[in-house]
Structure formats: structure tokens, C-alpha cells
């Protein structure tokens, strides 16, 4: 095999950050080359250089043996390079077909050939096994579906080099399987594939070789992925040893603190009830669109509810809006950081402090700048958020580091009683995951209720005291930690689980409430 | 025959002057028993739409003060197409070459002549106060993008020059918009630049402009005894000023008769439509200088 894609001493500097500092490696045709590294290690930056979005400050890029100097994304596309970016890049008001064919719409006599566009996109979607109408607008799709559209878009460019930047971070089981099958097909066709992920299992399953980054530098390239022990990968990546990343510890559970009773609203099928005890970590699992986020949003007053009450320590939580929930001590870290989380042009410190400011970081009307700064610095250190300083605009941080900032916002909340985390570790590196799990356990040990929604089954199983499974908009089962095995949970979550599960495992959620 | 309906189109409905004209036209409508349709036409486009609109309402003619005198040809053409009779008021309509349009009878003022009257009034007061012309600065609050504004102020300038006022003492203060605040700011700068003058006079396109200059002068301690501002119009803004208990630098205003313009043009048009007589081709009304001293008399003489 020859190196089809070659990076040679590539550098990229931003004010205060050396995002890439002399990185060299090569990837071969017919190979899936994994990239690993902590959040902010420079992986996405490398792909942006490959995609013509950034100009490197030094070094060379060779595609198919020729040196390339891309000045725009168009150049890269024309050279047969296509990228699936970490931050999804779609046009919300356009349809699936229009997004997939953006920049390359078929025409007839100078006019758009809509039937043809519809046809070829429908065919492609069907071929890769995605059940989506080409006429749906992106704004009406779930994140996972949008992600699949992005993947379809990249694949339809028929590029020789295809790079995936954390494609599975918002996919659940089923789509992930589709993606894996696709990647393997593309490899068989002899294309050069780059694959970034923080999920080591995926890398082991897919990649033939891998390169590890840390702090903008290449640490090592393993030409044969299969031989490398997991521990070695992790320590190369994060620079320290990690044994059990979930770090689960038994702890006593207190009284029932949070009670959700008959909650109903849009996208939820019928009234839903459950409760959480102090010190308990409750995991929510389900497939994409199972209704977990919607249920939590109802509880948080983020969406109007049609029925139901939420009671915390015996007191009913007011329903005026998220501010009422927060006032009662319930906080929710949303799943979509770009749309619902970050204030893009505000600083890291402001992003951390925004909600805390309500009562903690103020003296009467005024802000307490010193405390704000101290709190921000504390969390930057605790979560190892990589940023030149707390004044950096959050949009300039790497994806995973943005996620950490948003998490810090909620973890810093002082009157915390119920912590709801919706896909908290999306796009976060192994080391940081470990940090976050530790914090989750700390919060629980303080006697708070913690609810974690995750589409990563091992994560749910690894940290939860109890798991609730949702399916098609309703709670369909519940398993205590001891019984929550991968097969049991999946069996509940998948639509065709016709055989009733053993009664001991599944209690009727409504009877718990 | 159909009941008589006539339109009265004015370029700036918000201006008190035109409100007065409309009021007197209404009076005529009541006296003679015809219907009056009042439409503001701030620009050429709106004017064309308004004329079409009148035709749709089956009016037989209209009186117009067009947003620009060079719209004459357009007025003439669309009136003819819609079979409407036209009389122009205030500003005489001209064709593309600048010649008055003969087919449209006119009643109005000559901006230049009114301006001249302003200048003459100022000169008379300078002489009455026995100021030496060399010590007097004159502020022309200018808004030259409006042709009639330019004519008026140039009329005043010519009158001053004719009386031997030193041309170098006339200072332009261009206002960005035609309101008092902009006149204030413009005049303020003119005053700053020419601190050397002992006395000041001011004129502009209307009362509001002169008011701005007077206020700016007051801000520098130049009060009634060393300021002579003469406006044009004589409506509410001037009345407010002239009836203040103490005299201000706003010496007077050349009053023009909205009554004659509003009432007489409407009646003339009505007569023309009903075949009772063809209006005179051109009537130029005169302005009168109204000051604190003769306020009541002038108002009476002007019929207001």
C-alpha cells in the first residue's frame, strides 16, 4: 500500500494556542486511519486544514502524491476530499435532498432538476439504509437524523478521501451500525478514510491504523491498530493511567426526593411518572427519538406541559419556565450544545457563570467579578478545559472543551438538588469523561438526585444506580443496577421486544410513581 | 351632472402651512357644496398614484402643490389622461426645460420675492437699531436640496446685498434636515466660527429654521437686543414666539396667506368645473412682515 494522504510537519497557530505543532503521518488507500487525542489536541483543526477551511501555518499536505494548497473548501472537494465536520454544517430551512446536493444540484435546461435530485438522494438514502424522506426539512429532524444527512452528503461527493470527525457522538445504536457498515464498504472500495472518535471500542472495531495526538503534537502512529492495548492508547492520549473510567462507588440512597407524576406533553406518549431518591444516579436509556430529552424538557419547564406535576422534597415545582425549575434546585444540561448551550461570542467565564449569577455571584444588582473569575478558573482546572484563558470566546474552543464549559455551568450551580444531564459526555475524551463521572458521583454523594440521559449503553450501565428505558415516547421499563445488563436494556429499548421480560426486572413504571 | 369632487394634493401634509390650506379648502367645500379629497404626496411616485386614485374616485379636478416643480409635465399628462382639471398652488409647475406650464393656472407665492421681503425687513430693522453693517453677521440657514428653500434664502441674500450689506458677513449654515434641532446645530457652528460679530441676523426657509438659529444665539448670550431673526410662514411656531411675554431674537415672520391659497384655489377650480368661469392664468399673492408690533393687524389683513 502507498500513502495516499500525507501530512508533513503541519502547523497551525491561533492566538495563544499552538493547535498543531509539526504533525506528520500518512494514511493509505483502503485503510481506516483513526485519530485519537484529548479534547483540544488538534484533531478537528487537522481536518479543517485537509478540507481547505484553514490554511496551515507551516508544513505540507499531499493528496495522492501531489502537494496541495487548498484555499477553499471547494478546492478540497475538487481534489476528492470530503469531510464530515464535528459541528454539523447543514442549512436548516432546506430539505434533505437540497442539503445533500448543496453546491452540486442537478440541472436541466439551466433549471433545477428536482425530480432527479429527489430520486438520487432517495436512492442513496435507501442504499445506505437510512429511512428519511428527501423532502424533509433539516429543521424538523433530530440531531441524529441531521448527522445521517451530513454523512450522506459527504458520501455522495464520491471522494477518494473521506474524513469523519466524531460522527457517532450524536448517533445511537442503530445509526451507528449503519455508519460502521458504510465505513467498511468504503474501505473495501479502496478509499482513504480518516476517523475521529473518543469511543475506543469504535476505533478498535473500525480502524486499521491510528495516530495519537496530544497538545498539537503527534505522540505516535500505530500501523496496526489491533495490537495496541487499550491502556496504552489511553495513557498516550491523556498522559496518565486510568483504570476504571466509570469509577462507580456504592453509596447509600436517602429518601425519595424528586417525584414526577403523570407528566404529559408534545412528543410524549401519555402521562409519565418516575421518582428519584437522594444520592441516586438514575440513567435514562433509549434509542434516538425515544423521548428522553422531551420528558426532561417538560420537567424543566422548557416546553409547555399538558398535564402532570413535579415535586421536589414534598414541594411542587412552579411551572413558569426554566427559571422556576432552577430556583427550586433542578438544573438541566441540554443535549444540543450549539443550539441550546453556548453563547458563542461570550467568554468561557461568562458561559460558565451565566446561571450561577442569578443568586450566587451578585451583590444586590451588581456582579462580583472576582468571584466570577475564581469560579471560572476553578472549573477550567477541575475539568481540564483547554483554553488560553478564561476570556477566550467559547466558539474558539474545541468541541469537547465547549461541552466541558457547558457542563461546568451546571455543576457550579450552588443550590443544586437535581442534576439532569442530557448526553453529557458527547464528544468528550476518555480522561475528561472520567473527571465528569467523578463529579457526578460527588454530586450524588452530597445527597442530590442525578439523572443522566445517554445513548452510550456502557456509560449508562457504568454509572447508574438504576436505569429507566424509554421507547417511542414512553417509559417502558426499569432495571436496578444489578439487573441492568446490556442485553436486558437493549431488549426493552428495541421496538420489537414482544416477549415480556421477567417480572422481577421490570416493574410497571407507573406503579413506582 | 355628477356631484362635484375635487382633490387637494400637497407635498408635505405634516407641515402646518398645508394643514391650514386644507382647512380653508374644506371651508370652500362647505360654502360651495362640493366634496374635497385631501391627499399628501411627499414624492413623485405617490403623486402619480394619488392622481390615478382621484380619477378612480371620479373626481373632476384637483389643486396641487407638487413635491417638485419639475413634475409639471407629469402632472399635466396624467391629468389629461384622466380627464381632470388642474390648478397649481404655492409653487408654480414648470416643464422639463424650466418654463412654466401655461395650461395649468397658478396661484402662489414667488419664493424669491418672499425671500426678498425677509431681507428687506431685516435691513429696515438693522437701520432702525442703528447697527453698523460691518458689525453684523447674517446666518443663512440653508437647505439647498429643496429648490424653493434655496430661492427664498437667495432672495433674502440679494436684498441684503442690494442694501449694501457686506457679502462676506453672510454665513451659510446648512441644516441636515429641515427641523429646528438641525437648524440649531448648524447655526451654532456658524456662530462659533464668527465670534467677531457684535450683532446677528438670521433667515431661512421657514420659521422653524430661524427658530433654531435664535435658540443657538441665545445659548451664547445673544438675546433680543442683538439678534434679528425673520422667518417665513407666520403659523403657530411664529405665533408662539411672538406672543412670549418678553421679546426674543425672533423678530418677525413674513406671513403668507394660507387662507387665500386654500380657499380661493378650491373655489376657482369649482367654478371652472361647473363652467362658471375660467381661473386666471397666474395670481401671485403677497407676503406681509409680521412682528410683535403689528401681529394682530397682519393676521386680520391675511384673514386669519
Amino acid at each position, binding site marked *: 500500500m502507498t500513502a495516499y494522504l500525507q501530512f508533513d510537519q503541519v502547523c497551525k497557530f491561533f492566538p495563544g494556542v499552538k493547535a498543531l505543532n509539526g504533525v506528520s503521518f500518512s494514511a493509505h488507500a483502503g485503510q481506516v486511519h483513526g485519530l485519537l487525542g484529548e479534547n483540544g489536541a488538534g484533531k478537528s483543526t487537522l481536518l479543517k486544514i485537509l478540507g481547505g477551511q484553514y490554511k496551515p501555518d507551516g508544513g505540507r499536505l499531499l493528496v495522492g502524491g501531489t502537494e496541495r494548497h487548498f484555499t477553499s473548501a471547494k478546492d478540497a472537494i475538487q481534489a476528492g476530499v470530503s469531510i464530515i465536520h464535528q459541528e454539523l454544517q447543514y442549512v436548516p430551512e432546506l430539505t434533505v435532498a437540497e442539503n445533500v446536493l448543496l453546491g452540486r444540484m442537478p440541472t436541466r435546461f439551466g433549471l433545477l432538476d428536482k425530480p432527479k435530485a429527489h430520486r438520487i438522494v432517495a436512492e442513496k438514502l435507501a442504499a445506505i439504509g437510512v429511512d428519511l424522506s428527501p423532502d424533509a426539512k433539516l429543521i424538523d429532524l433530530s440531531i441524529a437524523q441531521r448527522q445521517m444527512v451530513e454523512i450522506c452528503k459527504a458520501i455522495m461527493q464520491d471522494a477518494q478521501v473521506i474524513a469523519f470527525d466524531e460522527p457517532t457522538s450524536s448517533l445511537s445504536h442503530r445509526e451507528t451500525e449503519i455508519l460502521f457498515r458504510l465505513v467498511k464498504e468504503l474501505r473495501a472500495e479502496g478509499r482513504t478514510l480518516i476517523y475521529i472518535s473518543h469511543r475506543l471500542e469504535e476505533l478498535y472495531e473500525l480502524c486499521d491504523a491510528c495516530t495519537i495526538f496530544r497538545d498539537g503534537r503527534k505522540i505516535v502512529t500505530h500501523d496496526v491498530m489491533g495490537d495496541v492495548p487499550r491502556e496504552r492508547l489511553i495513557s498516550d492520549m491523556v498522559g496518565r493511567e486510568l483504570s476504571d473510567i466509570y469509577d462507580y462507588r456504592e453509596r447509600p440512597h436517602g429518601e425519595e426526593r424528586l417525584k414526577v407524576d403523570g407528566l404529559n406533553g408534545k412528543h410524549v406518549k401519555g402521562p409519565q411518572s418516575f421518582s428519584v431518591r437522594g444520592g441516586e444516579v438514575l440513567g435514562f436509556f433509549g434509542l434516538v427519538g425515544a423521548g428522553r430529552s422531551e420528558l426532561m424538557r417538560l420537567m424543566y419547564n422548557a416546553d409547555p406541559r399538558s398535564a402532570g406535576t413535579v415535586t421536589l422534597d414534598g414541594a411542587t415545582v412552579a411551572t413558569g419556565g426554566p427559571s422556576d425549575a432552577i430556583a427550586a434546585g433542578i438544573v438541566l444540561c441540554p443535549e444540543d450544545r450549539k443550539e441550546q448551550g453556548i453563547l458563542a461570542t461570550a467568554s468561557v467565564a461568562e458561559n460558565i457563570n451565566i446561571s450561577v449569577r442569578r443568586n450566587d455571584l451578585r451583590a444586590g444588582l451588581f456582579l462580583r467579578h472576582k468571584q466570577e473569575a475564581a469560579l471560572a478558573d476553578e472549573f477550567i482546572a477541575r475539568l481540564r478545559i483547554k483554553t488560553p484563558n478564561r476570556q477566550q470566546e467559547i466558539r474558539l474552543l474545541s468541541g469537547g472543551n465547549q461541552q466541558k464549559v457547558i457542563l461546568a455551568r451546571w455543576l457550579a450551580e450552588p443550590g443544586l438538588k437535581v442534576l439532569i444531564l442530557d448526553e453529557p459526555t458527547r464528544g468528550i475524551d476518555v480522561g475528561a469523561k472520567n473527571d465528569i463521572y467523578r463529579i457526578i458521583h460527588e454530586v450524588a454523594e452530597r445527597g442530590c438526585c442525578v439523572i443522566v440521559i445517554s445513548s452510550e449503553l456502557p456509560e449508562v450501565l457504568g454509572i447508574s444506580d438504576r436505569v429507566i428505558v424509554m421507547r417511542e415516547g414512553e417509559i417502558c421499563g426499569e432495571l436496578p443496577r444489578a439487573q441492568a445488563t446490556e442485553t436486558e436494556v437493549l431488549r426493552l429499548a428495541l421496538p420489537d421486544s414482544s416477549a415480556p421480560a421477567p417480572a422481577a426486572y421490570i416493574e410497571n413504571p407507573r406503579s413506582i410513581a | 351632472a355628477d356631484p362635484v369632487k375635487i382633490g387637494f394634493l400637497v407635498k408635505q401634509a405634516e407641515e402646518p402651512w398645508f394643514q391650514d390650506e386644507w382647512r380653508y379648502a374644506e371651508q370652500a367645500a362647505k360654502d360651495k357644496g362640493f366634496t374635497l379629497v385631501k391627499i399628501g404626496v411627499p414624492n413623485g411616485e405617490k403623486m*402619480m398614484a394619488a392622481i390615478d386614485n382621484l380619477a378612480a374616485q371620479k373626481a373632476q379636478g384637483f389643486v396641487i402643490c407638487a413635491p417638485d416643480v419639475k413634475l409639471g409635465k407629469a402632472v399635466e399628462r396624467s391629468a389629461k389622461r384622466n380627464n381632470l382639471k388642474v390648478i397649481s398652488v404655492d409653487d408654480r409647475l414648470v416643464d422639463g426645460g424650466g418654463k412654466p406650464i401655461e395650461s395649468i393656472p397658478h396661484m402662489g407665492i414667488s419664493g424669491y420675492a418672499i425671500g426678498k421681503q425677509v431681507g428687506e425687513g431685516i435691513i429696515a430693522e438693522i437701520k432702525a437699531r442703528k447697527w453698523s453693517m460691518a458689525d453684523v453677521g447674517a446666518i443663512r440657514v440653508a437647505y439647498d436640496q429643496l429648490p424653493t428653500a434655496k430661492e427664498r434664502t437667495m432672495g433674502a441674500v440679494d436684498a441684503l446685498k442690494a442694501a449694501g450689506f457686506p457679502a462676506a458677513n453672510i454665513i451659510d449654515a446648512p441644516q441636515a434636515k429641515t427641523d429646528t434641532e438641525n437648524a440649531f446645530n448648524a447655526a451654532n457652528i456658524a456662530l462659533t466660527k464668527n465670534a467677531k460679530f457684535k450683532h446677528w441676523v438670521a433667515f431661512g426657509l421657514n420659521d422653524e429654521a430661524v427658530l433654531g438659529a435664535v435658540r443657538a444665539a441665545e445659548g451664547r448670550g445673544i438675546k433680543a437686543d442683538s439678534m434679528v431673526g425673520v422667518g417665513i410662514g407666520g403659523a403657530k411656531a411664529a405665533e408662539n414666539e411672538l406672543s412670549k411675554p418678553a421679546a426674543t431674537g425672533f423678530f418677525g415672520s413674513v406671513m403668507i396667506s394660507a387662507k387665500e391659497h386654500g380657499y380661493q384655489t378650491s373655489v376657482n377650480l369649482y367654478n371652472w368645473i361647473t363652467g362658471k368661469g375660467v381661473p386666471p392664468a397666474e395670481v401671485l399673492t403677497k407676503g406681509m412682515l409680521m412682528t410683535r408690533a403689528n401681529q394682530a393687524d397682519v393676521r386680520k389683513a391675511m384673514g386669519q
Partner: protein
Amino acid sequence: MNVSQLNPAAPTSRPLISRQWLSEYSMPLAYVVLFAVLAATVENFFSLTNVVGLMLSVAQIGMVACTMMLCLASRDFDLSVGSTIAFAGVLGAIVMEQSGSVTLAIGAGLAAGALIGACNGVLIAYLRVNALIATLATMLMVRGLAFIVSKGQAVGINSDAFIAFGDERFFGMPLPVLVCGLCFLVFGVLLNQTVFGRNTLAIGGNPEAARLAGVRVERLRVWIFLLQGLVTAMAGLILASRITSGQPNAAQGFELDVISACVLGGVSLQGGKARIFGVLIGVLIMGTVENVMNLMDVDAFYQYLMRGVILLVAVLLDQLKTRGERR
């Protein structure tokens, strides 16, 4: 997980379709109802002369609204259209009077408009000046130029050939109305049926995504502004011929009228959303309100009030409709 969950745009159930249909056609429908009511109640409203007059009165706004729609759809903004109308008219008139050639006059006007538009485009797309400030600056400069070349005076037009341009009628329809109709046709096709239109919506919806997909964002934005300048200049020339003179202070405040018509028609200022049909309705609403108020001899001061109220009512109705669609 069932199909309908994975596939939100799959054959949806009945109520959704009618909802979509409603949301698509509610504005035109509302306008038809409004028109019918007015025809029945307002004297002289429903007559050929009045309806033609109404259309004539919005012909200029309509033309420019077509390109403004593209401009807004691509998340831009253009305040300079009023000045461009004035300048193109003045320039056309001057060239007309000097050269005596209608072709030359129209050519000069159009060229000036295209140039102004292209300048806006370059400033905004390549030099990344904020669109509001950039077009405010050109608005001032172009207005200044209009005054300077005309020495502040209206420039009369005597050529009958030129005047015919704004006066001619075919089958009872004045040329400006026909031209305006043509604009709606052309730009409707451009928006909905061409790559140009899709890309415009794409750069409005998410410029970064468009760029990454290989759309030449900067070039496209310049083209949009250039078209806008061109069409605006045409509107200016037509206006000049209708009013038989080039007026340097014509069309002041025109930009806000055009933008309101577009927004009324459902074009989003956040970019990415535009419907040519909506814009047509927006333009017609604006014209109808004005027309009816004049027919009913509403006092000038109350006209301000009414226009405000009607603008509000129109968007509130539109708002109520989309309310249900929000989460």
C-alpha cells in the same frame, strides 16, 4: 421505533397536510378575503381604473422587492435602494437630455445601478463591512451624487420616447405594471427553480455550511447585490419616465417600504427563508392599504396611525398561524 418517528416528512397524517396548506396559502387567502370585503364596502375600489392605479402605485416597490427578497434571503440588507432609484433617474434624464438617445440614457442608468450594487456587494462580501453600515454609507453617497450631478435640481425629460417607457399601455396594462409582473416571474423562477436561488437560501440559512459545500459565497453575494442595483435602477428609470423628470430627492424612505413589504410577505430577516408569492402579497397589502385610505379620504395624520395598525395586524395574523408550529 416506528417509521413515522424516524421519518418526519413521510406521508404525514391528514391534519398536518392541511396545516401546511394553510400555512402556505393563508396570506394569499387573507388577501383575497380583504380584497373582496373592500370591493363590497369601499366605493370606487373595485373598478378597472382603480385596480390598475393600485398596481401602478406599487410597481416600483414590487420590482425592487423581488431582488430585496434575494438579498434578505441571503441574510443581507440593503438600505441604498431609494438613493439608487433617484440617482438612476437623474442620470438617465441627464444623459437623455444631453445625448437625445433613449438607449444611451437607459444604458447609463442601468450601468450605474449595477455598479452601485456591485460596490455594495464587494464591500459586504469581500471587505466584510456590516451590511447595514455599508448600504447606509452608499445610501448617503449615492444620494449625494444624485444631488451633485443634478445640482440639486430636478432634471426635466422632454423626449416622448423616454416618457412612453413609463406611460405605454398594452391591453390596458401600463408598462411599469407589466415589467413588475415580469420581475415577479423571473425572480420567482430564479428563487425556486435554479441553483442560484437554492444557493442564495443556503448562504442565508448557514453561510458556513454553504461555503464548506463548495458554494462561492462571496461571488454569489456580489451577484445578488448587482442584480438588486440593476433592477432598482430600472425602477428608477421607469419612475423618471412616469414623472417626466429625474428627481434627486425621489424615493426617500423607499428602502423601508420595500423591506417591510418583504417581511410582511414572510421573508425572514435572519435569512434562509423567502417566498415570492408572499412578497407579492406583501407588496399588494401595502399598496391596497394606501389606496383605500386615500379613497376613503382618511385624514393624513390618521393615515400614519392606520398604516401602523394594519402592519401590526398583518404580522400578528401571520404570527398566530405559525404559533402552532412552534414547539
